[in-house]
């Protein structure tokens, strides 16, 4: 009899970056960079 399909419920590492915390950290940095870039754009272009 075919065994029931296993659903991977445990924390697997992400395909890049080694672990999830690094990915989350990258997203936080990315958000800060976005805010800074948009702020810079506001200050630099609105004149």
């Amino acid at each position, binding site marked *: 009899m075919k065994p029931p399909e296993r659903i991977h419920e445990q924390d697997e590492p992400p395909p890049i970056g080694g672990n*999830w915390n690094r990915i989350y950290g990258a997203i936080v940095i990315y958000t800060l960079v*976005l805010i800074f870039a948009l702020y810079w754009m506001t200050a630099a272009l609105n004149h």
Partner: protein
Amino acid sequence: MRLADWIILVLYFGYVLWEGFRHGSKNQNLDDYFRGKRSLRWWAIGLSVMATQASAITYIGTTGQAYGSGMSFIQFYLPQPLVMVVLCLTFVPFFYRANIFTAYEYLERRFDGRTRSLTSFLFLMSRGLSVSLVLYAPSIILGVIFGWSEVMTILVMSVTTIIYTTVGGNKAVIMIDAKQMMLMFAGIFVAIALVAARFPAGFSMADAIQLAGATHHWNNIDLSSNLKSDYTLLSGMVGGFFLALSYFGCDQSQVQRYLTGKSLTESRLSLIFNAFLKVPMQFLILAIGVLIFVFYHFEKPPLNFDESYRSMLLTRAGAEYTQLEARYDDVFRARRNSAQELQAARRSGDLTRSESAKARYLETQAEFQKVRDENRRLLTRLLGKAPSNELNYIFPSFLIHYAPAGILGIMLAVIFAAAMSSFSSEINSLAGATIIDFYRRYFNAGASDSHYLWVSRGATLFWGVFATLAAIYAGGRLGSLIEAVNKVGSLFYGPILGVFLLAFLVKKCNGTGAFWGLLAGEAAVMAVAYYTSISWLYYNVVGVAVVLAAGTLLSLASKATTDGHG
């Protein structure tokens, strides 16, 4: 509309129907129908999450907002990457491991049946109320701009979507969403290229960016702390954060996307994908509106983007309106000339000349706006009420006048894809909550797979027909369409998020605390909406705070009472 445009639209509608039927034959039970057998890959789920959030209103309303008041709406999207992190850390693993069909099912395991039912009911209320807007809003605008019948536009979109969603289930919805989202991405770049190609000879993209800056259209970030202002960094990062967390974490139309992941990793990756793409995508959509604003410095925009008003004005106030149009011609020419002078002055590098040219340009811009405002006042006087929000007509009006054959068809397919991808996910999730949280829970717990499959199709059909009829018979006036949709959601989102946070974060919370805390939160949000003028983005914060506080206190009180009696 030319033959090439019609061919593209026919191909688009034919494709989505074919894809729906292709997946429909594989559905055998509820797991297939609502969770796609938990077999989907991250990219498809991620694109579906984005497509569900981006409705036609996003393309039509957002570009119009940027045309009118610049980029400030981008602040509303800025917390979304952080929201995705919170979801990956909490909601997604909790839901995925619980092996549930609806987010609200989780609440019964954590608290009790009534908390689950009340939360699911609030979802059905809020989503059921807003789903018709997804059809209604674009149909009204496309009707005015293209002369199409609103009812026919609604029916073409809704009947096609109802068929592929009812037959194909969630897997078909997600796979079609993914293709629709790719089309929408392509549409953004096509629209930008189309506007840029229409700039006058010698006027570059850099010139366009500079000109928009003179009127402060690049107002991406507003650091003010005014709680009554809708779009500031504070309202975006606080109010927008809670709204997005509630929408992506507790709204079944989104949860049902990432519950289909082949693994927890696939579900998480779909949200990580969103975290990186959503803000740039929204930035580009807003930028289309800003570029159209610049474009209309060189081509005269209609005095009424909602062109149905022009004939009414000529009939009922002919002399006054003709005079207004003549003045409009004058101020348009003056503004165009001053914009060209500003461009030449900036290129010359002469600061004094630039400052003087900018002052002249801003003066002509103010004159131009003054005539447009007078036109609005005339309309208000003749109609006896405020006219429709012209910002929602700008993008479709631009397309009908300036898109070449074929490109217009592609852009219309983009608008239809945006509407249909949201509509399909929403009726699929409404059916999911109806069947799983109510029908199977209360009325028929032990029926066969085949029975559940057919009643699920029936529920999808029901919600589709309900939304279609509501869209056809919806009356009244919508403000800025995108705000209208978000405002309806904001009355319910905060309290629902509060209950889930109680479940995840407050170990001592019990069913009594969660249930009455939810009701207290909903009452608080209604009171704030009715009695105060704070921005609607803060309703979510109020809802979360009241549910967390009331739920925790009531849980402790009910436990103390029980202990006392014991």
